[in-house]
């Protein structure tokens, strides 16, 4: 008997057969496959770019809050010793990075240095300025910006409730405005991402539907030969997953390239405002996450197409 020279051992197993058929179908229509993958890649690259940027924007709020300090003005009857002790006590509290005590004398000296009101002060006869503690909040970069703002405000409220404290000063209004602008931006981007993701899902679903039609004869013959439902659907599910895997890879590459183009002018703009803000480059984890998400999207698109009620040539068997 002739020893046949045929494909690999694996391609004659059920799963190997399904994958071999899927890859072969993609390769045989290489131009159509490339166009579909490119459409999928470019469609999903935009949400990916926004996602890359959103992490940096979240840090922007934290950085902005981190640059702010809380100035706690003590009552006039708090002695210099008690004021220094107050600052030392708070140094080790949760949510506080460090504190600086400014005594009444230091405050007066600073005031005299920065203003021309020496005569007016002399007329008062005694130092009217209170001692103050400058508190620098401890910012956790892993925490979202809005949570950070709430934490800093809660810290300020704790100071306000103390008898030894006369007044607490903190300017978080501009941070709140930045926070609102970023929230609006995120909502718009999220909606856009949802629409583009749905578009991607439709592209995959339609491609898989065409693939189903192209493979109808093979599926009919396989059914006659006793193929189970899983045998019939497996190549289609693999095709959807392959589209997702390859489309996701293209999306991740396009997004990374586009992001690197955006990074330079964005960093330059931040530098002009003397901001330490910089767009962070996407991490390997983010890159792989995009590929994984789009791969899952491909599988979901294929499942939705294969198991929808009108796919009678599969579901009835």
């Amino acid at each position, binding site marked *: 008997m*002739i020893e*046949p020279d045929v494909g690999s051992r694996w391609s004659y*197993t059920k799963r190997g*057969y399904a994958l071999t058929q899927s890859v072969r179908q993609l390769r045989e229509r290489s131009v159509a496959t490339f166009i579909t993958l490119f459409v999928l890649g470019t469609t999903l690259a935009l949400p990916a770019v926004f996602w890359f940027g959103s992490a940096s924007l979240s840090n922007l709020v934290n950085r902005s809050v981190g640059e702010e300090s809380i100035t706690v003005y003590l009552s006039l009857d708090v002695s210099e010793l008690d004021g220094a002790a107050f600052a030392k006590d708070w140094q080790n509290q949760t949510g506080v990075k460090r504190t600086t005590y400014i005594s009444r004398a230091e405050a007066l000296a600073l005031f005299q240095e920065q203003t021309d009101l020496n005569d007016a002060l002399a007329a008062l006869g005694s130092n009217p300025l209170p001692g103050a503690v400058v508190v620098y909040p401890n910012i956790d970069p892993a925490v979202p910006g809005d949570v950070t703002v709430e934490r800093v405000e809660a810290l300020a409220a704790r100071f306000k409730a103390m008898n030894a404290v006369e007044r607490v000063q903190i300017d978080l209004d501009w941070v709140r405005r930045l926070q609102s602008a970023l929230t609006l931006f995120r909502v718009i981007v999220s909606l856009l991402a949802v629409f583009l993701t749905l578009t991607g899902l439709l592209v995959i679903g339609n491609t898989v539907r065409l693939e189903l039609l192209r493979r109808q004869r093979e599926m009919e013959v*396989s059914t*006659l030969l*006793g*193929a189970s*439902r899983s045998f019939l659907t497996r190549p289609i599910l693999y095709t959807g997953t392959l589209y997702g895997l390859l489309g996701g890879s293209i999306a991740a590459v396009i997004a990374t390239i586009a992001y690197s183009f955006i990074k330079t002018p964005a960093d330059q703009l931040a530098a002009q405002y003397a901001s330490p803000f910089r767009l962070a480059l996407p991490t390997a984890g983010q890159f792989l996450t995009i590929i994984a998400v789009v791969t899952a999207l491909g599988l979901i698109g294929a499942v939705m197409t294969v198991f929808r009620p009108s796919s009678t040539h599969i579901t009835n068997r």
Partner: protein
Amino acid sequence: MIAFDRVSLAYRTGQFALEEVSFTLKPGSFTFLTGHSGAGKSSLLRLIARLEKPTSGDIQVGNEQYSRLKPRHEPRLRRSMGIVFQDNQLLYDRSVFDNVALPLIIGGYRFKDVKTRVMAALERVGLSDRYADNPIVLSGGEQQRIGIARAVVARPKLLLADEPTGNLDAGISEEIMKLLLQFNASGVSVLFATHDTDLLNGYRFPQLVLDGGRLTADQTVGGAGFSYQPQSPNSEPEVTS
């Protein structure tokens, strides 16, 4: 082996493709299923292959009572039989070897067994040297032989042939017939649907004759019911109305 008990198959329009058909075919038999076009031959074969479900009546093939057969077991049932089609139903996007190997892949056979069985089946139909070719380059008769090789590669106990010689000239039809006889001689039951009078007259095997969806007698049956005379030691179908 195959028993039809008052089986009917109706279209949605209410018209019957098969009506009250009853017969029994014994294991190892070779039986012609004949009748004019539209008489219900293909419908009967599709019922046996569980590609259609009867409107009424019951079918038994081997130990499988179709009325009790769960849908998830239908593929397994189909794998236990071989089917040869008039248009051979080959896939032209792959080689002869891969066409014949398909039932074995579906059945989950080991690669070593796939190679051995495919080449043995091709050897039996005289086409082992063409295993690497695409079937499209083969003649109609050769393609039909590939179809037969695919039908028998998993060594089924029952072979259903739906007008396998319908598109072939007389000489090649003879070759196909001889191949099916070889398989029958090795114990495979064959139900051969045809209206080729040359074959029907040339081989005096029992016949199931359909007319307008009803089972009727032919010359070999005579008027006393539908009890066939055995034509060979292997073929003893009994037909009852």
